[in-house]
């Protein structure tokens, strides 16, 4: 079947199998930031924005994304690099496999709620699993990033 999906602003028109999942569509078209984790909809590694909402691409039929806007981490380079530096400064990226999904969902949170409390961060990111960090470094990274956005120090300055 034919679909036309807008990936990071660029239309990809192609033939797909009816049961192709969005994660496979995106990876087949070069978006390797979209990671395959649990494939049960529980780990958050495959998070992308579908019409500006964070969703699990392992559970979306690519056919359902026809004529829709999909954004992956590749499409958020500047925003992701700025925020990602704060995560890295806390040594919280560790193996790095969960990071793209975490960055995507954290960015979704910051867009929805620019000044979240710690409980709100924990609740919003409950669907992003990390098996290395224990989440504390990631939370520190987010707090310093949010402080920076409010005019505070950069992650480097905090570490120094």
């Amino acid at each position, binding site marked *: 079947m034919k679909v036309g999906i807008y990936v990071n602003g660029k239309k990809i028109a192609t033939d797909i199998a009816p049961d192709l999942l969005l994660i496979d569509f995106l990876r087949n078209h070069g978006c390797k930031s979209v990671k395959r984790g649990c494939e049960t909809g529980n780990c958050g590694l495959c998070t992308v924005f579908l019409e500006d*909402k964070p969703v699990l691409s392992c559970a979306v039929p690519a*056919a359902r994304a026809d004529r829709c806007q999909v954004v992956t981490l590749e499409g958020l380079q500047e925003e992701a690099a700025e925020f990602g530096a704060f995560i890295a400064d806390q040594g919280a990226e560790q193996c790095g496999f969960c990071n793209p999904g975490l960055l995507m969902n954290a960015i979704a949170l910051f867009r929805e709620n620019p000044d979240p409390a710690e409980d709100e961060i924990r609740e919003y990111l409950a669907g992003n699993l990390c098996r290395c960090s224990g989440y504390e470094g990631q939370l520190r990274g987010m707090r310093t990033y949010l402080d920076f956005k409010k005019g505070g120090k950069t992650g480097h300055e905090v570490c120094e």
Partner: protein
Amino acid sequence: MLTLKDYVRAESLTQAYELNQKKSNRILGGMLWLKMTHLPVQTGIDLSGLRLNTIEETPDEFLIGCMTPLRDLELHQELNRYTQGAVRESLRHIVGVQFRNLATVGGSTFGRFGFSDVLTMLMALDTDVELYSGGILSLAQFAAMAPDRDILIRIRIKKTPRKSVYLSHRNSQTDLPVLTCALSGCGSKFQAVIGARPGRAVRIPDEQRILSEGITSNTADRFAEYVSRQIVTGTNMRASADYRRHLAEVLTRRAVLTMGGERL
């Protein structure tokens, strides 16, 4: 994993219903449960083009389209005001935001899953379901029916003046619940709904009118004990039947006290 030989974005409910009469075809909801099955599906029927993903509010009821994501219910201010935040509480523990942006109220309800937080919460309210062929019937009636080839179009929550509280217990965060408990009171009529027993949610009305005497520590204890005596629980990998019965008593007591204004 699920395989689809064909995919149809339905252009009308009539088309979707006709396609769905073939046993090898399936309506696609949020796809989160369906994708975990090994069903060879001939045609996946997608309702996402039928504008059934909205919550409409009238003076008498909330009309929730079957394709409305759970996250939209969680964030709906009026619905949460009406339920004193119980709807949000029933949804916020379900995996993560990305999951709830996909999971649909129609899929969660039509599946009548035993573990469903959604079914437990909605059964505690004055809720009807609107079916394409079966018309409008109460959710309690619908929940007791065997699955068929009908299509659930909308959930209708009537705005009867009501207090509600929702609580659940999980072994670990974002896991399926071990037990769910929703309490609602309309005037002097109260009922508890217990789900994840692990069977489908069931209603336990306060037939002894214990809570009509007023909400106190004593009536909370008595109603909780009454619920734990009435409830039929089972054992699975998450918990034993005895543990669930104990949880039913604890959660019901907490729910009653919360409804009475106690902060737990």
